């Protein structure tokens, strides 16, 4: 169990900075996810902590012990950092069976053979591979290989577990299952976990705290999952955590208009100053009603309606801006809200994030 301190860490590749001046602290025993788009440098940070790369600036400490310091040139080799790591491609050794794979860290540590056997089998059972100890990796499925990698990382009871997108190559069902299991294991063992991913769903589901990193390797926000989701620090974080609708809003004196139109904004007033504003909201924040009803709301026209089973997905034109709405099917059925293309509707929003300036959604349709 260990905290990790990262202080002003920078790393360049071929003169191009990947990380610069990055500081971050992991608390003892927490599950921390680092969320960012691919190529943003999150894997580099993981490799810096593991010791496969050396920082060009800054200092990294695990459990108060400095393991890498650019100023003094100190670098503790990976094998002496006392950590476990699970790689994106599992990195299960193909020439060893499950038992030997998992037992390898104990063997290196010189564990006495009876204890080694007992501990290895216990961990194999813990990850749900009991009975498969003699199998070779080539005889295992992707999910099983992933469990072997996890067992191998856990067997020596590391103070810190580093996970690099370990669920990427699994199918959706397995991914969900493994995600719960990792979380359960972490609670049981109390190990500190740093989990790196670009998948916001996993990140939010598993984390005690989340950090969101942008393409340039800058941390945009750190906080509890619900905090980051509900109160994003900026539009990057907002965009990254789910499908984002952006509606431009113009302030004219006391009055608010949508985009360049004369349509009035109704609903939650902005908490930001400035003449140009953007209202950000999720498809699930959208409430719809029939245009004929006398309820308040923005006038919209349905451009596309897709019935997806549990929910209905609408593409709605509000004064020239397209937004997406997702409504539960049972609600649509119960309240006569099954629209077809070209129908007029009223849109209200039950939660809005205000951003200064005019923003455009990245993926509109």
């Amino acid at each position: 169990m260990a905290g990790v301190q990262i202080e002003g860490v920078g790393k360049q590749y071929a003169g191009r900075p990947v990380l610069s001046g990055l500081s971050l602290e992991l608390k003892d025993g927490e599950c921390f996810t680092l969320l960012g788009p691919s190529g943003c440098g999150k894997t580099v940070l993981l490799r810096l902590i593991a010791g496969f790369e050396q920082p060009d600036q800054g200092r990294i400490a695990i459990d108060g012990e400095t393991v890498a310091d650019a100023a003094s040139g100190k670098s503790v080799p990976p094998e002496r950092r006392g950590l476990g790591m699970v790689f994106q491609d599992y990195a299960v050794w193909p020439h060893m069976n499950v038992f030997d794979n998992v037992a390898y860290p104990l063997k290196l540590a010189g564990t006495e053979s009876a204890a080694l056997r007992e501990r290895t089998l216990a961990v194999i059972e813990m990850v749900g591979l009991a009975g498969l100890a003699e199998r070779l990796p080539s005889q295992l499925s992707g999910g099983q290989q992933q469990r072997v990698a996890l067992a191998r990382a856990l067997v020596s009871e590391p103070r810190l577990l580093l996970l690099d997108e370990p669920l990427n190559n699994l199918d959706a069902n397995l991914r969900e299952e493994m995600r719960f299991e990792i979380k359960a294991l972490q609670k049981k063992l109390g190990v500190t976990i740093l989990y790196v991913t670009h998948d916001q769903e996993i990140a939010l589901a598993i984390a005690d705290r989340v950090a969101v990193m942008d393409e340039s390797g800058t941390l945009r926000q750190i906080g509890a999952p619900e905090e980051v989701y509900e109160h994003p620090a900026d539009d990057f974080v907002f965009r990254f955590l789910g499908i984002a609708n952006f509606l431009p809003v113009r302030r004219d004196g006391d009055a608010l208009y949508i985009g360049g139109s004369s349509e009035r904004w109704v609903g939650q007033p902005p908490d930001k100053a400035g003449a140009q504003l953007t209202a950000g909201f999720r498809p699930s924040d959208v409430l719809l009603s029939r245009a004929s009803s006398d309820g308040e709301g923005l006038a919209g026209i349905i451009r596309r309606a897709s019935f997806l089973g549990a929910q209905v997905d609408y593409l709605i034109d509000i004064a020239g801006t397209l937004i997406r709405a997702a409504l539960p099917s049972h609600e649509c059925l119960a309240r006569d809200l099954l629209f077809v293309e070209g129908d007029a509707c009223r849109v209200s929003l039950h939660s809005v994030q205000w951003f200064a300036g005019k923003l455009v959604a990245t993926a509109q349709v």
Partner: protein
Amino acid sequence: MTTKTHTRFGTPELLFGLSVAVLVIVVAVPMLLIFFNAFWVDGHFNVADVIRVLRHPETYKALWNSLVLSVGVTITGTIVGTFFAWLVTRTDLPFKRTMKLLFLVPFMLPAFIGALAWKMLLSPRAGYINRFFIDVLGFDGPIFNIYSYAGIILVETMYLFPFVFIQVSGALERMDPTLEESARISGADLITITRKITIPLVLPSILSGALLIMLYSMAHFGTVAVLGIESGIYNIPTLIYEKIHQSAGSFDSIRTATVLATVLVITAALILWLQNRVLAKGRYQIIAGKSFRPSELKLRGLRIPLLVVCILYIAFTIVLPTATIFMVGGLKTYGLPFVSENLTWSNYYHILFEWDLTRGAIWNSISLGLSAALITMFAGVIISYVIVKMRVRGKGILEFLGMLPFSVPGSVIALGVILAWSGKFGINLYNTVWIILIAYIARYMAFSLKANSAALEQVHDSLVEAARASGATMAQALRDIVVPLVRPGMVAAFFLIFLPALRELTVSVLLYGPTTRTIGVAIYTLNEDGETVYSAALAGIALIIIVLGEVLIKRLVTSKTSAA
């Protein structure tokens, strides 16, 4: 990586330095010396003199012969190879699988031993077949003179056609049959399909195999040396040999040899470059990696006649020469008819247990082959590791130097090694086994690099990193993870080197001294000295060793791969 990091001199730099040093000494220096000797006369760069050498009738003729012979062999080899490849993949020929394996046998057999056999059968006066026609059937003269362009082309074709055969049968097997079927549905008849669909699709494979034949034939020593010298047919490698051997190191002949070598290197590089282009262009998606069941042409009435053609071809090119070698090797005197009172085991006994010259040659070949294979295998692993896994600047040089000998003919390597190790730099290894060993290492390094880098590329970095994260030091990770995973590649490299080294002639014939004959050299020189019977007997023993070796490897490799 970055200039900011402290300049440390760690293991990567040390390994890199060592690898570069080995390759520079073994490969770069000899090659540079050849160019240097070719173009540098009396302290001046001199092209006019190079042209003078090239216009000398002797060199000019050798260049011309090399061209004529290699073009001839390429044409016949391509036709034969493509025809048989089509026959065993796309028709309902009986015993196709067996036939396919049999067509690969010539690859195992050294061409110069084949040439020797054909000389015994078809030399104008003494050849057994010619004598049969003259003495028994009453012909006026020999029916075929093997000491001719046609004879050389014929013999080389027999041993080089598998280059095309392998490439084309592979392509035909991997070609998606729906491509042809859809043409058929569109209404094309079989001839149109073959002309418009099949041939264009396999053309890159045909061309690439043809260029390989050309490359080998151009640089081929053995057959031309055995069959050509009698009637004055020299190609580049045999003329280099003559120059070096006859004039014991005179400046003029060494210069001629280096100029010839330069021409050979440039031609070989050109051919390889062309082959790469052909392969890169021809990599259609349609020829997939996996095997389909190709549609088969019904041969109907031609089924049996074509089978007979195949059997006759194999009997004529494999069985007949091999039998001749063993029979002649058992004769009391060369020229006697093959009847039981003329046959004896004593030649074989003499060669294996009594005669120091042949016993020495067998010992030399085995020890040279073993040492070259071991050294090259280990050096190859280390150099491949640097090339594939390490981030050191300038590793491109390593790759270039390592693969260079792949395109450099054996006679050129031998010549370069002579120039470098005959006392020029204070070390004189001429006439010792060491000079042959160095040349073998240079010649076979590329084999080892290919096998080992292929194996290393399978070992992802994360496998090593996972070991480090598990608490292994770099050395432990290498021992427990990398070495076990590349071991099959190392074993493959070992045999890829050991077997060709056993039967090597081109390099060792330029480098041998009184006590350092190899098997190849001994067979060749015994034949030159008129000891045809002993030459054949030793060739027979060589064939047995080679075939046993090949079988052993097949066993070993298949059991290795099935266990993994």
